[in-house]
């Protein structure tokens, strides 16, 4: 009847022809890695709820490791099933891409996290409190530092085993992040892996004030940046009328115009597209710690518990760059000539600022933070190559870099004095004399950072610069070379300190780690050298994984 017709709008439905909303079709098998991890996370919560305190640690560690391993197995299975190449497509109604890059990055993230969890579970380094071994996390995050409650918690032998489920949630988010095939999923994944990290940062057992401060900063800035990202999403949605990557890409490339000519005012309006794109980019650049969105990195890296720092530095970068790649290569290739120059600029300042500011750092963790910024710059150089080579080189670099970082931070956890980890560089003087092995290991990682041949760092750097040069970004290579030279300076400085300066009397001691951290470091060294000497196999992997699905 007419009245009903007249009020027809989006809000009401015509009585006749009631439409059925079809149930979404989800390929659970192809999402299995993510599902396993998130499932395990939920299980972890239940463990916290129902298992007695003494068994929790063991149970959580086991659960986490198994879950990550299983997820990795699932990734391998998918890759073997040809989802990396032939059968690559967007699963879950186009929400999540299952393709080469996604699987490669997910695999990397899972491995890195697994190794990182080893360092989380380390309980040998801190002297046992009241006869109970303790890890590097606060007995009770809520307790006021140094307050009665904390002392009681310590006496009662509380441990924050919640970190394990938190890590799993974060990992779950990271797995989705680079695979997200629409902006909404991107945003949600971003938050899913950011929120647990905020919490993790606050949970250091020693130096809790620093830890909490880092958490606040990270949280506020993170939220700030995600707001920008979200607004960017909104604008892109406004531009294209959809948030799926492919949809937007079609509109960008002018293939499809949106349905209703009445909306021409907004749709296809390039201002929306450009601003939106820029804002989304900014959100991602924040996560990878590119200048000028890097300011949080040093503070957070320094304040957070070192295992968490390692985890963040390694895994977050992988996930962030994954998403960045997908966005630039799938959504905005049509806009290459708009964003490339901008990214050039970002890459250049990131490389230079990271390298230069690091020169005068006095704290190991901050130093590594700045070096991670410089490295973000190097990776960006590969990103802007906009060739399949560029993608695979970035993938390789991420794999190589994340293990080096993880290893480096694990070594940092070993060097301790009365106040916990001795991160001030002056404390590291003469470390090579006291414990040559530790110092040598750290030196290996530093050399890898510096990109000395026969280490993975060199292979990665070469791959990225090669791609950049072929992608016509010669100047970037020059700048990269220059900043590597500057960077070399401070890596060398640390080595000098460790080997050529006399040990201090009240110098730190090097704790003897359990098998967990040891294996983490060992894996780090092994990967560093293997990727340095015989990188071909992994280059092939990355090469095959170089193509995005649309």
């Amino acid at each position: 009847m007419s009245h009903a017709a007249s009020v027809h709008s989006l809000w009401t439905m015509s009585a006749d022809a009631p439409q059925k909303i079809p149930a979404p079709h989800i390929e659970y098998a192809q999402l299995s890695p993510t599902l396993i991890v998130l499932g395990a996370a939920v299980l972890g919560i239940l463990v916290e709820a129902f298992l007695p305190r003494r068994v929790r640690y063991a149970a959580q560690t086991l659960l986490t490791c198994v879950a990550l391993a299983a997820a990795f197995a699932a990734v391998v299975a998918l890759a073997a099933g040809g989802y990396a190449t032939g059968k690559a497509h967007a699963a879950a109604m186009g929400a999540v891409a299952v393709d080469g890059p996604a699987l490669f990055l997910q695999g990397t993230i899972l491995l890195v996290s697994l190794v990182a969890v080893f360092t989380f579970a380390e309980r040998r380094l801190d002297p046992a409190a009241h006869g109970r071994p303790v890890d590097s996390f606060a007995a009770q995050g809520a307790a006021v530092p140094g307050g009665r409650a904390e002392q009681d918690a310590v006496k009662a032998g509380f441990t924050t085993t919640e970190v394990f489920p938190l890590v799993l949630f974060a990992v779950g988010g990271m797995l989705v992040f680079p695979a997200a095939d629409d902006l909404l999923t991107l945003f949600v994944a971003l938050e899913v892996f950011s929120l647990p990290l905020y919490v993790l940062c606050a949970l250091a057992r020693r130096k809790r004030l620093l830890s909490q401060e880092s958490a606040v900063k990270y949280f506020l800035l993170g939220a700030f940046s995600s707001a920008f990202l979200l607004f960017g999403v909104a604008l892109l949605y406004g531009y294209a009328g959809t948030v799926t990557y492919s949809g937007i890409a079609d509109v960008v490339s002018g293939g499809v115009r949106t349905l209703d000519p009445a909306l021409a005012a907004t749709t296809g309006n390039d201002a929306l597209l450009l601003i939106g794109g820029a804002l989304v980019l900014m959100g991602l650049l924040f996560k990878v710690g590119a200048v000028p969105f890097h300011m949080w990195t040093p503070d957070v890296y320094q304040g957070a518990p070192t295992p968490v720092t390692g985890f963040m530095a390694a895994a977050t970068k992988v996930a962030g760059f994954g998403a960045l790649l997908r966005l630039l290569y799938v959504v905005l290739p049509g806009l290459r000539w708009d964003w490339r120059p901008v990214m050039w600029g970002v890459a250049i300042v990131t490389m230079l600022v990271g390298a230069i500011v690091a020169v005068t750092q006095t704290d190991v963790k901050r130093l590594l933070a700045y070096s991670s910024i410089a490295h973000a710059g190097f990776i960006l150089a590969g990103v802007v190559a906009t060739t399949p080579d560029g993608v695979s080189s970035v993938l390789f670099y991420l794999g190589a870099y994340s293990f080096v970082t993880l290893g480096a931070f694990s070594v940092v956890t070993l060097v301790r004095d009365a106040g916990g980890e001795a991160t001030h560089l002056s404390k590291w003087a003469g470390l090579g004399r006291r414990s040559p092995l530790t110092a040598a290991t750290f030196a290996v990682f530093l050399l890898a950072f510096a990109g000395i041949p026969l280490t993975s760092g060199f292979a990665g750097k070469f791959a990225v610069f090669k791609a950049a040069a072929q992608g016509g970004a010669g100047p970037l290579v020059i700048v990269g070379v220059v900043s590597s030279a500057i960077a070399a300076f401070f890596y060398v400085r640390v080595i000098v300190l460790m080997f050529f300066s006399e040990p201090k009397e009240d110098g730190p001691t090097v704790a003897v780690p359990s098998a967990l951290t040891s294996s983490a470091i060992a894996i780090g060294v092994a990967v560093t050298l293997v990727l340095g000497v015989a990188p071909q196999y992994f280059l092939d992997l990355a090469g095959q994984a170089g193509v995005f699905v649309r």
Partner: protein
Amino acid sequence: MNPVNYLYLAALLFTIGAAGVLIRRNAIVIFMCVELMLNACNLAFVTFARLHGNLDGQIIAFFTMVVAAAEVVVGLAIIVTIFRSRHSASVDDAGLLKL
């Protein structure tokens, strides 16, 4: 009236929020400003949904609210802990980590 105005409003709100983040000291307030920005985004989404005549935008708005809620949970927890240990919620007091 032209729905595009809602966009301008959204942009305005977003900017206000951002400005707030930049100038306010109290962590809670800063956080509220962020929420404001998120809601500005929501408004934008809904408006665009209206313009495009599809429901995606509205759905996204719901997602955003959920995410915002989650953020509140984590955020307040962190801010409260630091307030308890420092007896101040001013972000400028939290300046141990620098240089």
